[in-house]
């Protein structure tokens, strides 16, 4: 992966319509905004012209914010792991938004949510329709999946003029037939495809609680030089499971993971806090502000320690 050209951004906050006032009034508290581009347009469906119509109200807000801080795209719509199809028109639309906002990188999830239309047909819908699970579905970690992902990421890199990062997924089941562990799969994917990694530490934390593995064992095997961005967030318990609900402050164990990862990851360009808009009223302005302040302190420490390491090397 070409790391040389990637801009260093610092502390980021995700965009949700509910915290537009916060973003406008307290933009000195963060260095960049992460947006889900898919919510800024409406896809009228394949074969329609124009296929994508823009949400003018939200886009106008985004254009105002872009005057102040950089924006990165964190898509949810590529469904990059779908076996039946890969929608290059969707990729092209991401590319158009990347150019429009001059985003230094963009990312999507290591998962799929679209499946073949035979399911829709079983429900009486036209066989051409795809089914949208609405949740990120885990992929089998085997060579077949790896090959498919590498080809897709090559397409993405050809069509979008910014480095592409893939985010480790949250999952609640182990797929039978995995040929490799999560770290080895991510390392191989990054090496073979040329993408970087969004390391969502809350996802790792969630998975370790739900699936019962040692999070440090996973991180020890992960090639942290691929990590370009780190995601933080909160969740909540639901029975025996812990959910990645983006519902509040980052739990203490995740902050500890952040320190551990930053000590060993040489190429991190940004840390983003993710909160769903519907939980904003519970967390409040002060809660959000405290989170960003702590991220800022961590980021400064990371940069100081990185500078010291460079000095020692020199």
């Amino acid at each position, binding site marked *: 992966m070409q790391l040389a050209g990637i801009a260093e951004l610092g502390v980021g906050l995700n965009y949700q319509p509910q915290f537009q006032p916060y973003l406008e009034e307290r933009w000195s508290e963060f260095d960049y905004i992460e947006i889900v581009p898919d919510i800024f347009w*409406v896809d009228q469906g394949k074969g329609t012209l124009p296929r994508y119509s*823009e949400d003018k109200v939200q886009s106008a807000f985004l254009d105002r914010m872009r005057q102040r801080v950089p924006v990165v795209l964190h898509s949810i719509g590529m469904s990059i792991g779908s076996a039946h199809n890969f929608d290059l028109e969707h990729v092209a639309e991401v590319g158009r938004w990347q150019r429009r906002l001059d985003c230094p990188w963009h990312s999507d999830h290591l998962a799929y949510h679209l499946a*073949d239309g*035979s399911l829709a047909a079983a429900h009486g819908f036209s066989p051409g329709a795809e*089914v949208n699970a*609405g949740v990120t*579905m885990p992929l089998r970690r085997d060579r077949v999946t790896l090959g498919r992902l590498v080809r897709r990421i090559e397409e993405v890199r050809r069509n979008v003029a910014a480095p592409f990062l893939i985010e480790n997924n949250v999952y609640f089941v182990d797929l*039978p037939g995995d040929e490799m562990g999560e770290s080895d799969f991510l390392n191989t994917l990054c090496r073979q495809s040329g993408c970087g990694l969004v390391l969502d530490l809350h996802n790792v934390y969630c998975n370790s609680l*739900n699936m019962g593995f040692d999070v440090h064992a996973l991180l020890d095997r992960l090639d942290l030089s691929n990590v370009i961005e780190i995601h933080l967030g909160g969740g909540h318990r639901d029975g*025996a499971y812990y959910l990645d609900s983006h519902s509040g402050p980052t739990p203490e164990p995740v902050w500890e993971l952040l320190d551990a990862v930053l000590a060993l990851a040489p190429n991190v360009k940004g840390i983003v806090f993710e909160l769903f808009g519907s939980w904003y009223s519970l967390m409040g302005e002060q809660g959000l502000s405290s989170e960003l302040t702590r991220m800022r302190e961590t980021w400064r420490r990371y940069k100081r320690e990185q500078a010291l390491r460079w000095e020692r090397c020199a």
Partner: protein
Amino acid sequence: MSEAAFQAGFVRLVTDEGFLDRMRAGQARARGLTRREARDLCALARSPGLTVMRKLHLGFRLNKLLSMLPLTCRLLGTRRLAVEAKSFWANRAPVSFYFADEAEAFARFLETRRQSGLRVAYLDDVLAYEMALLLLKKPRAAGTDAPVVKVGFRHDPQALLGQLQEGLRPRCIRRKRTDLLGWADERGEAHWTAA
């Protein structure tokens, strides 16, 4: 194509309760799978994590209705909403990412149910109002004119919508034939005036 069939089967476990139940009971088979994939899908159906995925999926779908049709959902109440949503989902696979698409389809479903006998007081008025709002709030391509919609209420809209917006189930709303015209401004906010 086998991997695509496996993914479709896996998604169906998450999105289709009847299929999940039949798979758990060993009474269903997904088509186009190898023997290994069929075995794997059965194992997934019995995994406790699948229940969590299904819950997240339903939460995602329900949230679309609650956020796009809040007054209709409040009018229906929790129990009736659960019954109607379940019936709606049983016949409509989740084919769209968008909140508005799902909400429009649910509104049309409720309208059909209403015309075929579903009795919920004031549903015709509230549904017509929120269907009009969906139309007004739909993103428009640059250069296209904002639509103007007309909603004919059979009951006093101020009292009816006011009670619902305060979180109340409406009671004793007087009959009052009222036509309202609605349009959306530059910021996408809807405005209403008497026709």
